[in-house]
C-alpha cells in the first residue's frame, strides 16, 4: 500500500519539506518527497499496516505543528495521491463534502471496478474531473471537447480509441484514470557493498608481511561475499587505522573487475610494499568501492578457446597490470624507413579506437555462411563486457576468436622474414667498386668476419627534408654461414651498418 501526505500549508513552507523526512522516518522505513502539486510526501507502507502508519505519520506531523495535512492510502500510487489531494480539489470544485483540514483515508472509501481494469478505484475518485490527473492543457481541452467530464468516463473508454484519438499522453492519462500507475515511487534499496574489518588493541603492526597476513584474510572474506552475489570488484579501499588515531585510506584498483583473492592480494602487496607507515597499524577495513555484475558469456560447444578464455584474460590482465601495455599490435605507415614505418600500440588502445568492431560483425557472420578459418581479416572482434582487456575465445573478443571448423584449415606456409635490430649496428666492411656504387664483399660483426657470397642492391632510399635527413643504400647479402643479412651504406656519413637479417 502507498501512503501519500499532502497539505496546502506546504505551499508556503515547501523549502522545509525535506526536513519532515527525519521525523517521519521514526515511524516508517522509507520516505520520498516530490515537488509536484505543491509538495507530496510518500511514506512506504508496502507490507505493513498502512492505516497504522498513516495515523502515526499524522501524529508525527502534528507534533511538528502541521495540523492541516491530508493523507491518502491506495494500492497504487495514483489512488493514494488523488485521495490525498482530492479533499481540497473537491472543495475548490464545489463538489466535495470535506473541509480542508480533515483527514482522508482512501482505503476506507468504497471501490468500484473499472471495466477490464485490475486496479480498484474508489468511487469518489471516479466522479472527479480528469483535471485531477494533471493533464496537458491541450489534452484537457480535447477531453472537454469530446465530453469526458469525469475520471470514470475516461476510464470507461476503449484503449485503442484513446490511443488513436488522444495519443500517447491520452493513453497515460487513461491508465491513471483506471488506477494503473507504474511509477516507481520508491527506488530499489541498493545492497551494501561487501566489506570486512579487523581490529586489535594489544599491539601495533609495522611489518608489511604481518600486515599482509591480515589483509589476506580480509580479502578472503570480501571476495567470498562478491562471489556469493555474483559480482566482481573493480576497486577496493583499504583503510588502515593507525595507533596515532588517524586513518590512512588507500584505493586498490585492478585492471579488470575480478573477485580473485590472489589478484587482489598481489595488488595490495605491491601497494603496501611501497607504503611508508607514519605509525603502527591497529586496525584494517576493506570494502569494495566499485562493483560490477559478473555477466557470463554464452558458451559455444565448437569453440576450443572458450573454456580457457577467462584464464587467458586474467593472465593478460595481470601482465598489463605489472608491465603496462606489453601486448602490442603494429600500426604501419608508408614511411620509407622500415624502422620508422611501424608504431607499436597497446592492444587495448587499438581496440578502443578501432571502429566497426563488435557484436554486430559477429552476428552478421553468424547469419551468413559458416565460419571458415584462414581468413584473418574476417575474424570477429570486440571487447569482453565488463572488462578492459580483450581475449580470444570470449563471445565478443577483438582478437581472432576460435571459429567453427567446416573444412580443414589451410596450413600457413613457412617463409623467411625480415627481422630488424633495434638500432642499426655499425660494421666494418670490405668493398669493391662498381660502376656507380660500392659493393660489400665481407663485413666484421662481433669480432668475426663474414664473407659475402652474393648480394643484391643497392636499393637507395632518401628523404626527410624537414626532419632528420637520411640517404641509404641497402644491400641484401648472402654470407658464408648461410644467413641473409641486410646491410646499408649511409651515404651521408659514409659508414656501413647491419640493419637486420632474414630468418
Amino acid at each position, binding site marked *: 500500500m502507498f501512503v501519500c501526505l499532502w497539505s496546502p500549508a506546504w505551499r508556503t513552507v515547501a523549502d522545509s519539506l525535506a526536513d519532515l523526512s527525519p521525523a517521519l522516518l521514526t515511524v516508517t522505513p522509507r520516505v520520498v518527497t516530490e515537488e509536484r502539486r505543491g509538495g507530496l510526501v510518500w511514506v512506504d507502507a508496502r507490507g505493513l499496516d498502512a492505516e497504522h502508519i498513516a495515523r502515526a505519520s499524522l501524529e508525527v506531523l502534528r507534533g511538528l505543528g502541521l495540523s492541516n495535512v491530508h493523507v491518502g492510502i491506495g494500492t497504487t500510487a495514483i489512488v493514494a495521491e488523488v485521495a490525498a489531494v482530492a479533499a481540497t480539489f473537491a472543495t475548490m470544485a464545489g463538489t466535495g463534502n470535506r473541509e480542508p483540514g480533515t483527514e482522508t483515508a482512501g482505503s476506507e472509501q468504497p471501490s468500484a471496478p473499472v471495466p477490464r481494469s485490475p486496479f480498484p478505484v474508489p468511487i469518489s475518485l471516479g466522479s472527479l474531473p480528469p483535471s485531477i490527473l494533471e493533464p496537458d492543457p491541450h489534452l484537457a481541452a480535447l477531453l472537454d471537447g469530446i465530453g469526458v467530464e469525469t475520471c470514470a468516463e475516461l476510464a470507461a473508454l476503449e484503449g485503442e480509441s484513446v490511443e488513436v484519438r488522444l495519443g500517447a499522453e491520452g493513453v497515460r492519462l487513461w491508465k491513471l484514470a483506471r488506477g494503473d500507475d507504474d511509477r516507481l515511487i520508491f527506488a530499489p534499496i541498493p545492497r551494501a557493498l561487501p566489506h570486512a574489518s579487523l581490529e586489535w588493541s594489544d599491539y601495533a603492526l609495522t611489518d608489511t608481511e604481518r600486515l599482509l597476513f591480515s589483509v589476506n584474510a580480509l580479502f578472503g572474506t570480501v571476495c567470498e561475499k562478491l562471489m556469493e552475489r555474483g559480482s566482481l570488484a573493480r576497486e577496493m579501499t583499504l583503510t588502515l587505522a593507525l595507533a596515532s588515531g588517524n586513518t590512512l585510506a588507500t584505493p586498490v584498483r585492478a585492471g579488470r573487475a575480478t573477485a580473485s583473492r590472489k589478484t587482489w592480494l598481489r595488488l595490495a602487496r605491491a601497494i603496501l610494499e611501497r607504503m611508508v607507515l607514519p605509525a603502527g597499524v591497529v586496525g584494517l577495513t576493506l570494502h569494495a568501492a566499485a562493483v560490477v555484475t559478473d555477466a557470463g558469456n554464452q558458451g559455444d560447444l565448437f569453440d576450443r578457446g572458450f573454456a580457457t578464455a577467462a584464464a587467458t584474460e586474467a*593472465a593478460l590482465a595481470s601482465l598489463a597490470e605489472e608491465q603496462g601495455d606489453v601486448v602490442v599490435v603494429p600500426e604501419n605507415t608508408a614511411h620509407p624507413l622500415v624502422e620508422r614505418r611501424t608504431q607499436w600500440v597497446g592492444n587495448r588502445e587499438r581496440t578502443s579506437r578501432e571502429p566497426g568492431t563488435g557484436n554486430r560483425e559477429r552476428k552478421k557472420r553468424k547469419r551468413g555462411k559458416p565460419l571458415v578459418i584462414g581468413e584473418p581479416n574476417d575474424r570477429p572482434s570486440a571487447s569482453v563486457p565488463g572488462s578492459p582487456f580483450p581475449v580470444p575465445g570470449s563471445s565478443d573478443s577483438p582478437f581472432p576468436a576460435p571459429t567453427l571448423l567446416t573444412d580443414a584449415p589451410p596450413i600457413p606456409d613457412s617463409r623467411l*622474414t625480415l627481422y630488424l635490430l*633495434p638500432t642499426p649496428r655499425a660494421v666494418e666492411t670490405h668493398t669493391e667498386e662498381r660502376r656507380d656504387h660500392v659493393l660489400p664483399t665481407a663485413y666484421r660483426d662481433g669480432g668475426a668476419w663474414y664473407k659475402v657470397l652474393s648480394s643484391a642492391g643497392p636499393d637507395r632510399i632518401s628523404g626527410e627534408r624537414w626532419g632528420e635527413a637520411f640517404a641509404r643504400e*641497402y644491400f641484401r647479402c648472402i654470407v658464408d654461414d*648461410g644467413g641473409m643479412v641486410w646491410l646499408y651504406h649511409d651515404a651521408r656519413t659514409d659508414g656501413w651498418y647491419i640493419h637486420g637479417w632474414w630468418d
Partner: protein
Amino acid sequence: MLRAACRCTVAKSERAVWIDTAGTVVGAFWDEGPFLIQPKSRKDALKGAEELLQCGGFALVVLDGTEPEGTETVRLTRAVREGGGAFVAITPHPSLAKLRLESKILPHSYQWRRGPFDDPVDVQTATVRVRARAAGWNASADITVPVTPHDVRLSLEPGLADRRGLPR
C-alpha cells in the same frame, strides 16, 4: 618456421603468443593472429612467459630474445606442465627440452631472380636444413621456403631530396 607454427595454431582455433624481448619483429611483416608481447626487460619476459604458460590458455608460447638459464628453465618447464601448452625457447642451451630443433640455411641454396644484366635482383627461395632430436630419435630434413620481399619503398613523394648517385 616458428611464425608459421603460430599462425597454424591460431588457424586451429587455439591461441599462440610470441614474446619478442629484443624488439626484432618488424611490424610491416607481422601477421595478425598470434599475440605479440614486447616486454621491457629480460625479467619481465620470463615472468610473462611463466604466467602465460601457467594460465593454460595458450597452445604455443614462443620466447624470442631471452635465453632462460638454470632455475629459470626449471620454472618454465613446471609452468608448461601446469598449463599444458607448448613452449619454444630460442636458445643454444636447450636443457630440459623434450624436442631440440636446429636449423641452418644452406648458403648455396638461395634461388635468385636475375635482372636483365644477369645481376641478382630478388631472392625467391632458400633451403633450410632442419635437424630434430628427442630422446632416442634423430631426424633431419631439407625444406625449401619462400623469402618474404623486404619491401623497400624507393619512390618518395615529389619534392623530397633524392640522393641517388651522391658524390663519393
